[in-house]
């Protein structure tokens, strides 16, 4: 793809007109004949057992159609994942309804009625009694000697497994992981003693641990050793569209209208949660109102309307309210970290000893805690490192991956330490990040496998990003004026670096060129705002020489013959699915050349494909794609999809089979070589102005420069870079959860309590750029960029604040005005250092 006609160009995505006119249908916009409504009864207690439940008065309410309780749910089932591994059912994992709620707000039952008022009134007639059980909403409180456990069985998951690999890591394929089990673990009294000084106590024998290099030597050789504690906030994903679902059954098939990040893969989620064969699941998700990791394959709560619909024999709409979304809508685990870091006098990190405690919520172990170590090892390339961590179960809402899960927390734990070290060592903030930056196929994470080899990336152009950013941001000029007072205002500048996974491999592409000369692309990608649902397929269009105006993208409905597609989580999609689109495009190109050679003579390789034609190289005889498509139908076999590649996924096979005979089929699996792990990087720059009389600050300017490989769609990339930077900035400036520890219940349930940033909290100016260097290990050169801007945005702002005010202002995020003001008054951080959810 030497010269790009589509890749790298802006265009109008095929969904945009429907969005601006209000015709786009999100889950709550669908209607079905006889549709009824579900409402949830939520647990008022953080941990309890239902001891008595009398539904009779509710069932007697006219208009009530059915009530679904935990007893109606199928038992947790084993599953087989993409790699063919058997995943044993987690018997203590999340369930959609329960008789033993483990967080306040957990759904206990659901009532379906002719309308919501009836359902709500019926719920108020339900007689329910609870036996309160011990609970805890703060991980340190649970780890304290004698502290309570969130679950009856303990407070963390014991997962007897090889060392934690980063997502998409190579090892372990085919090996069935053991069933995780809940166990209890506490600090010793001696360990916990440090907590009273506001330092995170370190657990000698933590369940998650790994190391490499000579840590002791690293510290011994260090010119500066810092030992810091930092706490990151728990934050809700708060997608603007809640996880509302409408579902009905028809001829033993279930139709689920839901928001999801990953259309094709949600079929398996529904199948597993509901206990129905994937062939009998149809997922309709044309538009999804945001995901950020909270709707990777829809949400487990979708089983409620699905099963209620079966029970009531009617379509059921379950509208999830904003408050319910706080409980069941996922959140990012807050992490408290203790980082002992050794620096050479040049600023190079000689040793990193990191201990992370994450607030895991009550259910499945999240990767965030482990990722704080893995991501730190990649981003700063410490010469020696030890990671220890524990994901602590608490009676707070279930967590899930949120944009840059664990990576954002890694940045928030490490970046303030790096910034402080640079100040102490008298090194420029850009320079210290440059000297520690990964270069080329940089290694990261723990040594793994029988040969104890560390993973490595495909490429890393962090230094280039820092240089480009420093120039664009006029770093030196701004640095010169930072710290200067103007009345009650003082300015500061900050820079931060950040990284995360940015691609997976091995998925399928599928399209048909029909005799009308148009390209019909099948997309199994979710449409949740990243534009990858159409962006990826422009690679196919470009390869077969079809202008975008003649491309039709089918998406959002698994009954419409979609190919097997990656999860849109962890920024995999643009990498994985441009590869798949490339494979399908190359398949079609090959077929077009063969048809041309058959009809016009010569060998296939004498032909090229461009401008809607296949023709002899150098401009000889040829035929239109329209004609070639007709010829493909005439020829049959592989040409029109009657014969299919052996290696495509069965999901793709079924779709391709259904489409066979309609034209020339491009179908293929991504088998392209791929050696390293795909990671993207971002350098973020911010300038803030702080009012020292109120502690209030404004972000004047923000720039993010991304190492994202080839840019497929500039406006989409820009939106991702700045949008996810804002997500990170939210963590720096105000977003949080608030829990009353004594009652274990949420106090912040509304937007104005949780404080997601508004348009006026965004930096006054925002800019983005890329380094424009393709990833060397993927055919199109493109990687994802949804994750790393988060940490960069958060930490550029945090570092700008400390640049203006010094190191003794904050030890946790978000940094709110009360924290700044009291620290300035006292000359030291005064906000409670370790308490969760304040």
């Amino acid at each position, binding site marked *: 793809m030497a010269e790009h006609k589509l890749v790298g160009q802006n265009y109008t995505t095929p969904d945009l007109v429907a969005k601006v006119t209000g015709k786009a249908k999100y889950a*709550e916009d669908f209607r079905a004949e006889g549709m009824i409504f579900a409402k949830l009864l939520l647990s008022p207690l953080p941990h309890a057992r239902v001891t008595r439940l009398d539904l009779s008065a509710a069932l007697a309410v006219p208009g009530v159609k059915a009530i679904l309780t935990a007893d109606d749910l199928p038992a947790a089932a084993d599953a087989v994942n993409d790699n063919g591994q058997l995943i044993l059912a987690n018997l203590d994992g999340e369930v959609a309804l329960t008789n033993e709620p483990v967080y306040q707000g957990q759904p206990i039952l659901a009532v379906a009625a002719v309308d919501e008022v009836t359902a709500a009134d019926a719920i108020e007639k339900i007689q329910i009694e609870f036996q309160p059980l011990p609970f805890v909403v703060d991980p340190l409180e649970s780890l304290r000697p004698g502290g309570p456990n969130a679950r009856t069985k303990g407070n963390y998951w014991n997962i007897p497994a090889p060392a934690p690999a980063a997502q998409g890591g190579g090892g372990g394929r085919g090996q069935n992981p053991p069933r995780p089990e809940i166990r209890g673990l506490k600090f010793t009294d001696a360990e916990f003693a440090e907590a009273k000084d506001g330092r995170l106590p370190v657990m000698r024998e933590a369940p998650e641990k790994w190391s490499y290099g000579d840590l002791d030597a690293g510290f011994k050789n260090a010119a500066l050793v810092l030992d810091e504690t930092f706490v990151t906030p728990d934050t809700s994903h708060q997608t603007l569209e809640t996880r509302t679902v409408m579902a009905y059954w028809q001829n033993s098939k279930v139709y689920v209208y839901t928001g999801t990040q990953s259309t094709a893969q949600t079929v398996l989620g529904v199948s597993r949660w509901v206990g129905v064969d994937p062939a009998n699941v149809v997922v309709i998700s044309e538009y999804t109102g*945001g995901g950020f990791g909270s709707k990777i394959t829809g949400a487990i709560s979708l089983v409620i309307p699905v099963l209620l619909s079966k029970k009531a024999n009617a379509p059921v709409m379950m509208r999830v309210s904003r408050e319910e979304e706080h409980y069941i809508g996922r959140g990012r685990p807050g992490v408290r970290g203790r980082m002992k870091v050794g620096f050479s006098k040049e600023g190079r990190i000689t040793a990193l000893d990191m201990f992370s405690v994450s607030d895991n919520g009550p259910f499945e172990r999240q990767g965030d805690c482990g990722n704080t170590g893995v991501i730190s090892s990649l981003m700063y390339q410490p010469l020696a490192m030890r990671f220890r961590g524990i994901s602590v179960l608490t009676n707070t809402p279930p967590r899930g991956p949120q944009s840059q899960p664990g990576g954002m927390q890694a940045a928030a734990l490490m970046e303030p330490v790096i910034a402080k070290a640079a100040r102490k060592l008298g090194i420029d903030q850009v320079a210290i990040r440059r000297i520690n930056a990964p270069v080329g196929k940089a290694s990261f994470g723990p040594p793994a496998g029988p040969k104890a080899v560390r993973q490595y990336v495909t490429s890393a152009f962090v230094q280039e990003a820092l240089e480009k950013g420093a120039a664009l941001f006029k770093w030196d000029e701004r640095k010169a004026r930072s710290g200067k007072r103007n009345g009650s205002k003082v300015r500061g500048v900050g820079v931060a670096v950040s990284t995360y996974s940015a691609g997976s491999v091995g998925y399928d592409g599928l399209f048909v060129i029909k005799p009308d000369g148009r390209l019909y692309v099948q997309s199994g990608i979710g449409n949740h*705002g990243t534009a990858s649902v159409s962006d990826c397929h422009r690679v196919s269009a470009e390869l077969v020489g079809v202008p975008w105006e003649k491309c039709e993208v089918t998406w959002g409905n698994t009954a419409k013959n979609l190919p097997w597609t990656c999860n849109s989580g962890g920024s995999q999609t643009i990498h994985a699915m441009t590869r798949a689109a490339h494979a399908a495009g190359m398949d079609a190109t090959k077929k077009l050349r063969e048809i041309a050679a058959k009809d016009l003579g010569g060998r296939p390789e004498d032909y090229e494909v461009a401008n809607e034609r296949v023709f002899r190289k150098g401009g000889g005889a040829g035929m239109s794609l329209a004609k070639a498509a007709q010829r493909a139908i005439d020829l049959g076999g592989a040409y029109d999809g009657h014969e299919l590649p052996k290696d495509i996924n069965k999901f793709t096979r079924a779709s391709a089979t259904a489409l066979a005979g309609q034209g020339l089929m491009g179908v293929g699996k991504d088998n392209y070589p791929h050696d390293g792990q795909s990671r993207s990087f971002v350098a973020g720059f911010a300038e803030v102005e702080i009012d020292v009389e109120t502690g209030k600050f404004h972000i004047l300017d923000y720039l993010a420069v991304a190492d994202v490989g080839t840019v497929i769609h500039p406006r989409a990339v820009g*939106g991702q870079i700045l949008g996810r930077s*804002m*997500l990170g900035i939210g963590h720096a400036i105000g977003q949080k959860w608030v829990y009353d520890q004594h009652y274990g219940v949420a106090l912040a349930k509304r937007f*104005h309590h949780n404080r997601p940033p508004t*348009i006026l909290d965004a930096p006054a100016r925002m800019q983005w750029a890329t380094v424009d260097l393709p990833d060397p290990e993927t055919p199109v050169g493109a990687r994802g960029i949804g994750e790393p801007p988060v940490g960069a945005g958060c930490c550029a702002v945090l570092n700008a604040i400390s640049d203006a005010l010094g190191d003794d202002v904050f030890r946790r995020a978000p940094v709110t005005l009360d924290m700044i003001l009291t620290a300035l008054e006292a000359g030291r951080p005064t906000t409670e250092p370790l308490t969760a959810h304040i």
Partner: protein
Amino acid sequence: MEEKTMTADTPNRVSRRNFIKGVIASGAVVSSAGYLWRSSALFGQQPSAPGSVERLITLNVNGQDRRVDVLKQETLATTLRYKLGLTGTKLGCDRSECGACTVLVDDVPRYSCSVLTHTVRGKKIVTVEGLAAADGTLHPVQQGVIDEQGFQCAFCMSGFLMATVGYLKTNPNPTRAELAHGISGNLCRCQDYDKILTAMMRGAENLRKA
């Protein structure tokens, strides 16, 4: 609609015949199968006292008079979405915090989740579906979004469009900062604020040229 229902809820001074005539004359009878609220089978439970508001009202939405049966506690967002089929107006919080439900009421942007439908009788309501011309030509502000590929998931988009169109009526030539203030009552969780502002500034420019 059940006859029982109509008599039960029709104020004494309106005879049932007149009531039916009114419904027929208005042409478009909206289904009274209240999705979220008391459906027809349960109408009897909705209290109705003498002198209280009449349930069957006329709303002017996107230039059309629509007869619609509105419950006492019904919000405008509910009426639009569940009675009039105008699902372009979104519910993001139902608590007047996010702006996804913003519509124009007499040209003024309002959170339709927090407006009782009965309070906007006789007012002109415009939703996102009412922005484009009858021939499908997009409103200049909608076109601004197309021009700049604004927004990501777009669940907030119709609210932002209505807030912007409303604000531009009071200030057609805003600075970027002024526009940001003008549409600051709307949340975008994709936080594509920068590109949204670019798109809306483009829309404002389109509107001035139109």
